[in-house]
């Protein structure tokens, strides 16, 4: 029904016309979005072709595409892109796998123990990121960190490992912490999709004498797939944006080995005060995002 038709009942406007372009009800939201996101995006675009260093008194000056050509040759930018991809996909894939495994293990466990176990495995999701970051930084400390202490007491390692202070280990170490907080999300997702499988389907699988693995592969996996795809996308978005963990644990170091795009943009904008350059980084990121989104939509459409 056309919006506002009730009020305009006496106006004999022909109903033959096409549907209206916009619904009045989305307008307030669109206005707010335009103000708080649209405008900033436009100014990002404008800033990206300027040299605007807050530290100088000089007014912003137009530099055309120079920021972009600088980025192309900026080794750290490419390191940051690589780190972001590793960080995001490493986290999401492992967490999805662990979460699904845990959900399957707990699926048929009822009673107080099952409920307690479920409550426990989801609890990391409610731990604020900053707390996760501090907690794992504390756990990971080379000397005085509990992880090294335990591993040494158990005789697994000889000397303390500099988890966050080794260029090769730091990123995986942060990813492990991130997996810890992300796994419950996938656990919940898979657990709820498993509980959505109609009993009749599982029973007929049993009648057909399908074994545990066959049931998992042929029955449960198809039910889990869609939620996993969507959940993964949500988490990929969230992890692309994740700032707190890296910033608190390593601030992008050692070297640039854990510098992700968020950290790099933040440093550029608010430590080096190079707003123009930071905005150009943002524009490139935006383009990458739109491409990813387009691919995702195509994927989703194709499957339907």
């Amino acid at each position: 029904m056309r919006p506002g038709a009730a009020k305009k009942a006496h106006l004999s406007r022909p109903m033959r016309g096409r549907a209206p372009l916009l619904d009045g009800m989305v307008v307030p939201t669109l206005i707010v979005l335009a103000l708080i996101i649209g405008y900033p995006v436009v100014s990002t675009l404008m800033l990206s072709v300027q040299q605007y260093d807050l530290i100088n008194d000089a007014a912003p000056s137009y530099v055309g595409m120079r920021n972009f050509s600088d980025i192309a040759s900026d080794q750290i930018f490419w390191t940051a892109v690589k780190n972001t991809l590793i960080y995001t996909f490493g986290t999401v894939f492992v967490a999805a796998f662990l979460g699904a495994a845990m959900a399957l293990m707990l699926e048929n466990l009822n009673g107080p123990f099952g409920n307690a176990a479920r409550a426990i495995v989801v609890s990391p999701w409610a731990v604020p990121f900053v707390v996760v970051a501090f907690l794992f930084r504390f756990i990971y400390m080379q000397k005085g960190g509990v992880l090294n202490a335990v591993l040494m007491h158990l005789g697994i390692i000889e000397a303390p490992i500099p988890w966050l202070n080794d260029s090769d280990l730091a990123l995986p170490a942060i990813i492990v912490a991130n997996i810890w907080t992300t796994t419950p999300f996938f656990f919940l997702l898979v657990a709820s999709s498993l509980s959505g499988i109609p009993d009749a389907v599982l029973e007929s699988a049993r009648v057909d004498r399908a074994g545990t693995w066959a049931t998992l592969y042929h029955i449960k996996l198809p039910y889990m797939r869609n939620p996993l795809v969507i959940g993964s996308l949500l988490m990929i978005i969230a992890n692309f944006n994740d700032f707190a963990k890296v910033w608190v644990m390593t601030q992008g170091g050692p070297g640039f080995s854990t510098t992700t795009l968020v950290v790099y943009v933040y440093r550029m904008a608010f430590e080096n005060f190079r707003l123009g350059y930071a905005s150009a980084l943002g524009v490139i990121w935006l383009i990458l995002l739109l491409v990813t989104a387009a691919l995702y939509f195509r994927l989703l459409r194709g499957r339907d």
Partner: protein
Amino acid sequence: MARIRMSRRVLMLSAAVFAALPAMAQDITLTFANWATAEATTRDGMEQVIARFEEANPGIRIDSQAIAFPEIGRQMVLRIRSGNPPDVAQIAGNDTFLLAASGGLQALDDYAGETLATLKPGSYAPFQTEKGLVAMPWNQAPAGFWFSRDILKGAGLDPDNPPATIEDLNAAMAKVKEAYPDIIVLGMDTTNRAFSLQSNWPWMRAFGALPIGEGATGADTPEMKAYLGWMRMLAQEGYIDPGRKIGEFRPLIAQGQVAFLWDQVLVQGVIQNASGIDDATFNAQFGVAPMPAGALGSGYSFEGGHQLVMFDKSAQKDAAWKFINYLATDEAAAKLYTVDTNRSIPPAASFADPELAASLDTPVIEAFSTSIIPTITPEPFGPDFATAATAIMAGVQEAVTSDRPIDDIAADIQSQLDR
């Protein structure tokens, strides 16, 4: 035309306001941005000093704005740009020069004229720039080479004579490591932030490296590589615990788990707070010396003290100066805050209050005054320091935490610095 008319109206309006002013002229509110009230250790002391100042100056109220230490430089730059800086701010390290470069500070020469004569000359010299005196020294907190006498003794070293050269240091560290395999042999800050470069700069200078600043030779030099190689050796031998901020070593040295610590004068207070030992015990257990001498035949130090700055946008500069001067030179304030709370050294050359003078007459202060402060080396502070720090400290971290050839790392730092 319009603008002229406008400004006349503004003028008339101001006149009207000023006419009404005398009644409320007593009530000046100064905004004071600082991190002293943002930290549990110093908040009480700072608030007490402010209360005393307000008591002594009934017309002036202090609006203390707590801003965390790592944030204050950025916040001040941003607030200068947005035209709403505070009247006075606590500032330190490169941030002081960052603000000076950004052009938002009031030169203090006219205000500080006579006062400067009562200060130790070295305490304010670094802040006399071509823009004038950009900051007033509040306290001095240079870094020294702290050592634990107990550990040295236990490792078979002379507890009263810490290593005087880097070669001596290397040998001493090997002995300590052998005797105490689980402790941190040398505490130094290897995080990636501007303060880390400030803290490591004297070590680089000890190796003769001068990657940035006046007369810079760059990062791709034999001296810089020697420094990076030494840092790598420290990590490989397990002497240092990379990635810790300097503050994280302090509770550890208090527990006897750090042998040498490259840290500021205030560490004595932190140790005594944490372990509850008295002065005599402290001096029996810990000592401080100048940095071991490197290739240039000397060690260096850096000034880690805090300064006070006034912003040129301030509408009440006289009151602001009154406050700055009080914090920096009033003896009661110095005793209550600078010495007892902040555990650092007031910039004044001498003190009238004998108790204050006595409290500063300690072996540690003595060591700082006579042998460490003279080795303070200027730092390449300025607008580019933070960017350079990111590049250099990233290189240092790489040297410490990876196996990449030092030559490559040095070349990388240089290419970052060239950008």
